[in-house]
């Protein structure tokens, strides 16, 4: 039964991913949604890095005489993805700040209610 430790990393990554997904779907607060998105991102990073791991290998920095290294490719992809991730998170947070300024709230329900009000007024003000 060496399957359990062998797949444990993937399972935890999936669970974390689902935790993030649940926050994004079900929580009404927009800031918390961004935190959920960040959790989701980090779990994907963990998944990728787990794929690149080779047991008994060295980190991919050349040491004379060694031939067994972990896979450097996922590391490169995730390294850039982390930095891009923070940049996109910043854009998301900036949007949240603007929503707060426009609607006076970051709760989804409030924003929906305001939107509905607005569209009702528009309909009433029609021909």
């Amino acid at each position: 039964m060496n399957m359990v430790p062998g797949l444990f990393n993937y399972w935890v990554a999936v669970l974390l991913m689902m935790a993030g997904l649940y926050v994004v779907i079900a929580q009404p607060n927009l800031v918390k949604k961004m935190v959920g998105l960040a959790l989701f991102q980090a779990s994907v990073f963990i998944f990728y890095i787990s794929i690149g791991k080779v047991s008994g290998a060295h980190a991919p920095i050349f040491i004379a005489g060694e031939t067994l290294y972990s896979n450097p490719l996922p590391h490169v992809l995730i390294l850039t993805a982390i930095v891009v991730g923070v940049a996109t998170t910043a854009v998301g947070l900036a949007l949240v700040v603007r929503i707060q300024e426009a609607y006076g709230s970051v709760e989804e329900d409030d924003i929906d209610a305001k939107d509905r009000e607005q569209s009702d007024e528009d309909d009433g003000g029609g021909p």
Partner: protein
Amino acid sequence: MLLAVILAILLTMILILIRALLGPTAYDRMLATNLFGTKIVLLMVVAGHALGWSSFIDVALLYAMINFVSTIAIMRFFEHQGASSQAAIRERVK
């Protein structure tokens, strides 16, 4: 020996994590976050030495730095946040 130290640090991390989860006030959580960062630094150094990771000390140095910065950031923005409630608490204390 090194294994025992690693276990000790992991045990401490569990204790700190419990405090971070319980933490009645935000300051307790702040403290726990800071300590947790330091424990990660220690873990990196000891485990890196024991398991022969490459360039783990650079990483540990960075962690120590980032830990300090994020603690300062938490304190700074918390004070901004609590400006109005602080006054209320002060009134009550008096």
